[in-house]
Structures are given as C-alpha cells and as structure tokens.
C-alpha cells in the first residue's frame, strides 16, 4: 500500500492480506501470469556462493520487532521468513506446500490431521520438535494476545491436539477442514523454539539465515545458516534496510547502495525497465483491486443494480489509469490464476446500454452513490475518479469521498455503500472464509447467505479434490452473477534489483513462498 497523494510522505504498507476468519490464512501472492520458469530457465546461470545482499523495504519505524508472530508489514514478513519457517507455505497458485512439515494426512472425517515434521534444526543446533510447534501455535492463539494469525488457527482445538512423537503431531480440529494445510501456511504462523519470548535480542529460528544485528526502523543483518534443512543459502549475509519513501528505495538501488528494492511504483518501473541499469521484476496477480458494494443496503441490495455496476466498469481503462498499466483485468472473481479459480466464465466487459436498462428495471435511474476511497493503497483515488466518470455515462452520479488512510479499513467495514478495496493473495478458500460467510470477520460486502455458507462447509468436508473444485466453482458462479465485489483487476507487485542479483523468482506474488526468498538468490 502506498500513499499516492504525498510523494514526500509515503508510508509503509500493510500486508494486503491476512488471515482472519475461521479458516483464514493469508498470504499475498498469486501469480499466474507470466514469469520465469525458475532461475535456470531465465539464464541466470549457476548459483555462486558468497556476498552480502542489501534489500530495501518500507518498514515500521522504531516500533519494528523481530517477533515473527507480530509480523504485520511486508518488511516484517520478509525478515520473519529469513529467520523462521512455517509448517507450510503457499506456492505460486496459492496451494499449500510442505515446509517444516514433511507430510500431512487427514482421517476420514477430515477433523484430525497427523503432521510429520522433517528433520530440521534451530540456529542453536536444537532439533525442531512437536513441542516447539505446539508452543508456537499456543502462543499465537493466546487469548490474552492479539496476534494476527490467531484467527487463522481458530479451526484447531489446541487443548486436544498433542505430540505423538518427537516429530509428529496430531491436530484435532473443531470441524472438518479439507483445506487444513492452508492453516499451516497461514501468514504469521511461524515456528519458534519452545518457551521463546524475547525476539529482539537474539532470536533463534530454523530459517535459512541466523541473526546478527537489528536496529528497529533502520536495519537488520542476518548471516547464512549452514545447516538449513533445505540447503544453505548462497549469500553470506543479508541486510534489510528500511526506506519508507519509494523514491529513496529507487535512488538507493540506482546509486548502488542496495541490491534489491521492494515495492516500486509502476511509473518507476516503466522508466527503468529494459534500460539495463536495474532489473525490474513484476510479480503478477499480487493484489486484487475492487470496488466493494454492500449487498445488505440500498441501492446494492438489488442484484440488478450490482450487475449494472459490473457492466459499467471499463476494466482496461482502470488498469491503465489507476495502475499505470501494471496489472491484468479482473472478472469479478478473486484469485485469478490460483487453485480452484473458475476461469471458464466469460470475461465481463463494459455494456452501458444493458447497465442502463438494468438500472431502469430496478427503478434506480439517476442513482446517486457515495464512493469511499483513501490514499491507503496505490491507485485507490485514481480508480475512484475514473469509475466516477464511467458511471456518469450510465446516468449514475458518484460522489467520491476521501477518508483517513490510517483507519480506512476499519471505517469501510460496516459504513457506507460503495468503497475501493484491495486484497493481497490468499487461497480462494481463505478469501471466502474471511469475507463471504455469515460469520466472517471482515465481510465488507455484507454477503450473508445460509446456502452459500452451506456450500463452503460442504467443500471443507469433501475429501475428493475434484468434487471440492466443483463446489468452489458453484460458489464462484454465484459470486460472478450477483456478488458484492466488482473485481476489476490484479496489480503487479514490482521489485527492482541490481544487475548482479540472480535467482529472483518472478512467479511468486508478494508474500508467497518464493517471494523475498533470499536463500535462493545469489550475486554475480
């Protein structure tokens, strides 16, 4: 997220995704589009060992911490991923990939899962055990605390779950959960050593890098962990530096002060792409861009009005205008390119005549709506004014209202009727669980339908994957026809690297496994 209004004062970004509802998991990623087939296919050559890579991220100032369970920003997530591991993480299509967990297996009713850990050690040489996993999850779920991953772990009955061996755990769940591996991959669900509580002095994890030094809001220095279970990183050292201003990150990259700059503007990317000075890496399908209609109140409680709005949007114009072309158009469904995405539905395009006739049927001609927006994310205010002009052609008057960016997400959750919205990558299942069920905690479209809830439960109780995919498709068809999210695009996440940096995976949207994977990167 960035603040588009004040070039001088751009602030760090929250992770655009997150886990909250019952089965949430989050992660930002996606991918789907183009990208390399891996380092070798890209012609990066043979990895070379050694060197120190400096990576610039927008950060959290003096309040930053290395407590992985408190991770909130991209910078936090990148640092946490260097020091720690999760049991699973998201692949490019947002399906859960085993990490510290070697394998998982469910019982017949999908409410008991046996997870086996791989042989891995913490930086102090101690093995990663079932006790560490249970300690970490119980710490996250502590009712006295408000850790971000708490909601994601909600399906687990941690009192009943137990270690069945040094490296095996039986997770007892509160209900059948076919997508339980998504929980293990949840954002912030890192494994720390049993009884660890102080993370700023000498944090110990099992990740690819070990701790050297940390100054909140300024820098964090890590060194290669030679005994990393997946093989030692190529780099000797990794330094995260904080630069909140996008222009500062770009300048530091151009001036050779850092080798990796996270989160660049599309205009910057265009200016430097193909010039040879720096490499621009676009992580496709990273951030869903939408307008969110509250389906429980006028005028959007009439599905004909919602459909009219779907038909008003000129998606290409929104991508070009609000995202400077750095993205692909959406089809009113979350998760293009992700596992279970219903890609067989026809692409929606602008159709003002049909929109006008739908509005007429609904008795909503000369409609006036307020569109809430804020400088909280890139392109929000631009998207709002572009959409206002598009709606005008269908006879709708949109009044754009600017809100505070520090409280925007809380403000739009229950208030207003129409707002700008975005989301980082997460499994489609998690998007539904967090936002589209009657009990969802961040249901900004107020999409509350018992039959839809039942379909979700059905999917979670279906063992066969093909059958499950069919249920997800049914849910998506309904959302496509009459949902509250007008999803007009998916923005690229843009990274700049020096020419000497190799092995940066492009097929890994922000916050998936291969995003910010500094253990796979090398310097030439």
């Amino acid at each position: 997220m960035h603040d588009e209004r004040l070039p001088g004062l751009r602030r760090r970004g929250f992770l655009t995704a997150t886990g909250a509802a019952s089965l949430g998991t989050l992660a930002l990623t996606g991918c789907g589009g183009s990208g390399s087939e891996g380092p070798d296919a890209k012609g990066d050559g043979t990895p070379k060992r050694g060197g120190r890579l400096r990576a610039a991220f927008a950060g959290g100032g003096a309040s930053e911490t290395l407590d992985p369970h408190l991770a909130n920003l991209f910078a936090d997530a990148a640092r946490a991923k260097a020091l720690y591991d999760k049991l699973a993480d998201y692949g490019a299509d947002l399906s859960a990939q085993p990490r510290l967990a070697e394998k998982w297996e469910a019982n017949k009713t999908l409410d008991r899962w046996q997870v086996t850990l791989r042989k891995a050690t913490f930086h102090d040489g101690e093995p990663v055990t079932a006790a560490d996993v249970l300690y970490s999850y119980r710490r996250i779920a502590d009712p006295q605390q408000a850790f971000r991953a708490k909601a994601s772990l909600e399906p687990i009955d941690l009192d009943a779950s137990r270690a069945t061996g040094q490296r095996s755990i039986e997770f007892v769940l509160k209900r059948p959960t076919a997508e339980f591996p998504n929980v293990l991959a949840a954002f912030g669900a890192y494994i720390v050593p049993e009884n660890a509580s102080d993370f700023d002095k000498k944090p110990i994890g099992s990740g690819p890098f070990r701790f050297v030094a940390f100054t909140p809001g300024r820098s964090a220095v890590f060194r290669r962990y030679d005994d990393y279970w997946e093989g030692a990183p190529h780099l000797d050292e990794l330094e995260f530096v904080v630069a909140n201003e996008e222009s500062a990150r770009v300048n530091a990259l151009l001036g050779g002060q850092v080798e990796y700059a996270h989160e660049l503007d599309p205009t910057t990317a265009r200016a430097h792409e193909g010039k040879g000075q720096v490499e621009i890496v676009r992580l496709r399908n990273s951030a869903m861009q939408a307008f969110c209609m509250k389906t429980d109140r006028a005028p959007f409680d009439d599905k004909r009005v919602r459909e009219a709005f779907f038909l008003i949007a000129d998606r290409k114009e929104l991508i070009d205008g609000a995202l400077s072309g750095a993205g692909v158009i959406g089809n009113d469904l979350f998760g293009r390119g992700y596992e279970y995405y219903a890609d067989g539905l026809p692409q929606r395009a602008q159709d003002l005549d049909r929109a006008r006739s739908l509005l007429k049927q609904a008795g909503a001609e000369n409609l006036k709506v307020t569109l809430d927006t804020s400088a909280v994310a890139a392109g929000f205010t631009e998207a709002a004014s572009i959409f206002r002009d598009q709606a005008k052609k269908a006879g709708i008057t949109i009044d754009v209202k600017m809100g505070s960016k520090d409280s925007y997400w809380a403000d739009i959750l229950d208030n207003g009727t129409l707002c700008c919205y975005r989301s980082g990558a997460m499994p489609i299942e998690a998007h539904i669980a967090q936002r589209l069920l009657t009990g969802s905690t961040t249901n900004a479209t107020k999409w509350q339908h018992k039959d839809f809830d039942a379909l979700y439960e059905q999917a979670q109780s279906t063992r066969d994957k093909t059958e499950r995919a069919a249920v997800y498709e049914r849910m998506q068809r309904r959302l496509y026809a009459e949902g509250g999210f007008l999803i007009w695009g998916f923005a690229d996440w843009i990274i700049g690297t020096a020419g000497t940096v190799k092995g940066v995976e492009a097929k890994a949207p922000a916050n998936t496994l291969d995003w910010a994977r500094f253990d796979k990167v090398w310097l030439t």
Partner: protein
Amino acid sequence: MSGLRSFLARRLLLGALQTVAVVLLVFALTEALPGDAAVALAGDQPDPARIAAIRETMHLDRPTHERLADWATGLLHGDLGTSLTSGRPVGQYIADGFGPTLLLATLTVALLVPIGFGLGVLAARHEGRLADRLISSATLAVYAVPEFALGVLLVTVLALQLGWLPPTAVGYGTDLLGHPAALVLPVLVLLSRPVCSLSRLVRAGMIDALASPYVAQARRYGISGTRIRYAHALPNALAPAAQQLARTIDWLLCGVIVVEALYVIPGLGTVLLNAVAERDVPVVQGLAVVFGVLTVVLNLGADLVAHGLAPRAGAAA
C-alpha cells in the same frame, strides 16, 4: 540586572505554560484523529474482535482522562511512558531519533551562520550593484524551490548522474558520521531556504543600519568603514536575524520530515510521522514535550541574544 532576571522568570513560566498547552493540544488532536492505535495496527484486517483485543492489551479501553493523567504523573517523575505499539520506552524513541536530527541541525547551522551573514553583509555593502543583484535574485529564486523538488533534483544530478555522492543514507542510520558524504545532500537541502531568508534579513538590516543617523554620526567622527560596518551596524542588523536563526534551529531540531524521508535519515521527524500514523499517543506526546521545551528555550535564547545586541529590541520582548 533584576529587570533581566524577572524577565527571565516570566519567560520561563510562560514557556512552561506554553509547553503544557502544546501537550494538551497535541493529545486532544491525536485523540480527535479517526481511529486509534488498535485500528491502525489492525490495518487491512479490521476484524472487530481483534481490534477490541488489541485495544485491551494496549489499555486503550480506559477513559481518556485516566490515560492522560497516568502519563502526566509519569512525566513528573521524568518517565515519558512506553509506546503503545512496541512497548518500548518513549525516551528510547526520542534518544534514537535525536542523534541524526542533532547531527544534521549542527552541521546545517555551522554552515548557515557564516554563509547567511556573509552573503547578507556582502549584498548590503554593494547595495544596488551587481553583487547585490546577483545575491538577491539567486536567494529569491532558491527560496522559491520547494525542499522536496530541490532534494530530488540534487539526488538526480549529483548522485545518480555524476555519481559524486551517495543518493541516500540508507543503512547508515546508526553511523551517519562514518559516512560524511551521505550528509552532503541533506545538509545542502536544509541550508537552501534558511540561507536565503537569513541573508536577505541581514542585508535589509544592514542597509537600514548603514542609513541610520548614528552611522552617519560615526562617519562624521572619522571612524573607519570596516569598524562602522562590523562594530556598529552589524549588531543592530543581527537582532532580527537572531530571531530568525532561532526559528530555523527550532525547525531543524523538531524534525525535518521531508529531508529525512527523501534521504532515509531516521531522525525525530521520521519518529513523529510513524507515531502519528500508528496513533502511538505516548510517543507523539513525548515528542510534543521535547519540541515544546526546545521551542521555548530557543526563543528565550534568541531574545536574550537580541537583547544583548540591541537593548532597545529587548524591551519589546
């Protein structure tokens, strides 16, 4: 001297009241901002139950006046409180941010005083002639350029195109002095506008003073031009400049947000910006106290200097 002492006492008392007023105002304004620390921390995941839980762990569920009273009690014991977001002491936030801020301010003022006064005197000496016109138009032009634009321009030309200087101080946070080259650009940007305003003020003061009856009288006594300029005219011209200088130092010490952001210097401005965005009220209040005290002390100092230089001016203060 008793007149000066009671003047001092009055000013200090007034200053303390001003600081209290600033702190109360800042507290009220921060409270009036939409959202609180819990909402800010929850970000794009505004699950109401989670916000309530965060609020509880931060003790934000207690009444406003109780929180303010607690904080004020701590302040009386020299305790600035702890950050809502990280739980670390506010004193540490300020101490960490103050180093870079003080370094930048010291360097800037050390260059500002000779350059500003020198240019002002030079222009006044050559009033209406080429040197004056060059200095006056250049200072006016530079003054008109916004900091941010100048900063970007300098980075582009001096750092990226010519490669003479590092573009930012990224990663040097703890050891800025060890990388003096990284300080050149920020100091240049910080100097640009104050040099202009100060030199124009000195120039105007000097021209006024040089045209005054007492200078004419001194000339009639046959006192040398140099002595008249520096011993008689300059002190009188300095009085208004001293006030301007105090305001500049105050500005430099209270966080130069744009320059810090552009060059990645983790000073007090950055601390303030983050604290406001996080609604970290104790940190904002701690900074308000520090800024309030600094402003009062600097203005008092400037008044005393002005009083010493030109006693007539002191009477008005």
